[in-house]
């Protein structure tokens, strides 16, 4: 079946540096993508989303890039802070289907 997966299970980043979290998806019909942040013991928190008619979208300190040619999604976090330490999930949906979650990447911010 279709799936969404991440390249790196754990990402260690120095405080103040930029982080890049990658996600590959296999369903070429996917047209909606979301990034969630999940801190330990909490539910996933919406960060940013993007639709397939865009290739870039920016939020506060975060940018999502979508490359439909290679079916790749990335989340960039600028000036990573200790509060950014969490597990990040990408999720995708196609047409009227429900979200499919990727496997998650743990981000560890080193002081």
């Amino acid at each position, binding site marked *: 079946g279709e799936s969404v997966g991440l390249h790196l299970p754990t990402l260690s980043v120095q405080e103040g540096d930029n982080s890049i979290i990658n996600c590959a998806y296999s369903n070429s019909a996917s047209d909606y993508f979301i990034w*969630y942040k999940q801190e330990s013991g909490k*539910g996933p928190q*919406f960060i940013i989303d993007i639709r397939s008619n865009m290739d870039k979208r920016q939020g506060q300190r975060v940018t999502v890039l979508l490359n439909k040619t290679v079916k790749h999604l990335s989340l960039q976090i600028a000036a990573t802070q200790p509060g950014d330490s969490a597990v990040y999930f990408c999720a995708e949906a196609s047409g009227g289907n*429900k979200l499919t979650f990727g496997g998650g990447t743990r981000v560890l911010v080193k002081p």
Partner: protein
Amino acid sequence: DAMVIQNPRYQVTQFGKPVTLSCSQTLNHNVMYWYQQKSSQAPKLLFHYYDKDFNNEADTPDNFQSRRPNTSFCFLDIRSPGLGDAAMYLCATGRDIQGETQYFGPGTRLLVL
């Protein structure tokens, strides 16, 4: 503030003893979802309600049931919890199913003894 609320945050039950987890929302969303999340894994969708219409995922065990008495509340019933059902259970809401953001509650962590 509008939000998704889950109670309790932690639930301990005994093997085989029925347990009910609760979710409520003030977002007035049409869709309510229940997910199971095990350690270091992505959330796994169990089922969802679109308004009053129940939609079960094909691989959700019969042991898991759900009720949605009104727009605001949705319950997850585990009829005979096994040790393998210990997990975080997440409730989420959405305005619609089609390409819409889902908003998650804080989750209920279930421990089965």
